[in-house]
């Protein structure tokens, strides 16, 4: 109860390939969030930015860059970089400031402008950098997603059609989302006939990269009450836990896992640890969840998340998508926004976009993609170097 903070406002700049400076997307999203909250920019005491590594120095100091763009007004500033979890770490920084009483209202914002095609590493001969090394050896991001997908087929009997059903579901969800980049409903044939990229994953089952921006205004529960917002959507948990040694699954960008050969060391799954911590912080369980936004870097990976979020026992996720449990109208819709399948990844904005969507869902403002009666939502994502996050929001 006392660990909750209020979400007063959320806003996004639509995802796409707009080719503009990332600051512009961030300002657009921040102003939308301020307007949604109904508070003036001058009331914000803390600006927590999620950094981008692809837009030069202004991206490295994103918190200050956005604060300057919105007009210096003396707020405290912070920048977080944590790959795909950057937005969640920026949110965690705001949560800590607010709960400690150091500030009442914070802006959390992330935005990115992305290059075309594969995300490539910095140049030079740098074998000591695992991200450089794996590209040199011919191992790209889809390689890892495909290894996980192949495990599902060989261990659990999942099929390519199961993965395609995830894509089809998400494409139907995102079809009317004004912030989504790809608005096209796909058929099974279209997905299964798209080009093979990394067997068993095809082009239409792997997420692209996008430009985009997302922002939130969060505050103390007291401040929300003074504004007359007696029952705002609240952030109940932000989990950014690291993996536990020894990590059992080969994770991007590594070429090898940890070794679990030492006495007393067990192999652990990282993805499963993230929601466990979030559930514990929020004091709720998977049975309480009404809606989820998960990181579908590939369609098959969405199924791994069902199991990591404990929506079903290990190995049974495909049945949830086959039976329509996770589509709109089902018992537990996943990725009502359309997910990465409809957005493409805008790294520092993506974890915040997940929370924006859940906020609209819990307020009942999600329009055609509304999950009826949603009261509890959870997000999950994972990126490079042991960075990941899971955020729980509730009514």
């Amino acid at each position, binding site marked *: 109860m006392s660990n909750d903070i209020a979400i007063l406002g959320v806003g996004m700049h639509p995802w796409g390939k707009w080719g503009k400076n990332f600051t512009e997307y961030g300002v657009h999203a921040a102003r939308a969030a301020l307007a949604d909250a109904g508070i003036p920019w001058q009331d914000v005491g803390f600006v927590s930015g999620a950094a981008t590594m692809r837009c030069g120095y202004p991206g490295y100091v994103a918190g200050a860059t956005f604060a300057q763009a919105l007009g210096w007004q003396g707020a405290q500033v912070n920048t977080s970089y944590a790959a795909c979890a950057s937005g969640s770490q920026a949110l965690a920084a705001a949560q800590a400031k607010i709960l400690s009483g150091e500030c009442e209202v914070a802006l959390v914002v992330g935005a990115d402008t992305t290059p075309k095609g594969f995300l490539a590493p910095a140049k030079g001969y740098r074998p000591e950098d695992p991200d450089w090394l794996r*590209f040199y050896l011919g191992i790209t991001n889809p390689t890892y997603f495909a*290894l996980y997908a192949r495990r599902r087929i060989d261990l659990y009997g999942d099929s390519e059609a199961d993965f395609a059903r995830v894509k089809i579901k998400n494409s139907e969800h995102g079809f009317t989302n004004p912030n989504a980049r790809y608005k096209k409903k796909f058929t099974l044939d279209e997905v299964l006939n798209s080009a093979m990229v990394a067997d068993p994953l095809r082009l239409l089952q792997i997420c692209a990269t996008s430009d985009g921006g997302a922002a939130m205004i969060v505050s103390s529960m007291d401040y929300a009450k003074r504004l007359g917002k007696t029952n705002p959507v609240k952030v109940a948990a932000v989990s950014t836990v690291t993996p536990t040694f020894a990590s059992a699954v080969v994770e991007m960008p590594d070429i090898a896992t940890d070794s679990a050969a030492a006495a007393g060391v067990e192999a652990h799954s990282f993805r499963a640890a993230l929601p466990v911590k979030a559930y514990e912080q929020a004091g709720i369980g998977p049975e309480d969840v009404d809606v989820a936004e998960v990181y579908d870097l590939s369609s098959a990976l969405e199924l791994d998340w069902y199991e990591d979020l404990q929506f079903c026992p290990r190995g049974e996720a495909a049945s949830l998508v086959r039976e329509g449990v996770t589509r709109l109208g089902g018992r537990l819709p996943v990725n009502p926004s359309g997910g990465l399948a409809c957005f493409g990844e805008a790294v520092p904005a993506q974890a915040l976009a997940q929370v924006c969507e859940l906020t609209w869902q819990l307020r009942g403002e999600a329009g055609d993609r509304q999950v009826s009666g949603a009261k509890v939502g959870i997000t999950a994502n994972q990126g490079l170097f042991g960075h990941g996050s899971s955020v729980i929001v509730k009514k």
Partner: protein
Amino acid sequence: MSDKPVSAAIDGWYSLDHEQPHLIGAQCTVCGTYYFPKTISYCRNPGCDSSSFNELPLSREGKIWSYTNACYQPPEPFVADDPFVPYAIAAVELEREKMIVLGQVIKGVGVDELKVGQPVELALEALHEDDDTIKVTWKWRPQA
């Protein structure tokens, strides 16, 4: 393959013994944790604060944990043949080391010839050529 001299694409990561190549790893002298690559100066086991390691050959045989392929040419620093030839990739579990090591699968072996649990062994094969040498790397080869 041309008759240029052969050299390691990444120096010191594997032996250049073409019959029985092996990856060169490190092992913590205190807790026994293995590392690959061996470029380690502090043990990452949270229960161990050692900074002392022995270099050693890793197991050259393992079992496929999972596999895939690359149908499209990766970006730099990958050096592609022209035209690009797709290749398979395997993640291989080493039993003694209790770790998984990624690598390409040798040329000519496609994903339809692989399965989870299949035994494989380490091989050396060209990764690319430059003007003077053939740069070889480790790859996984299905065992007969």
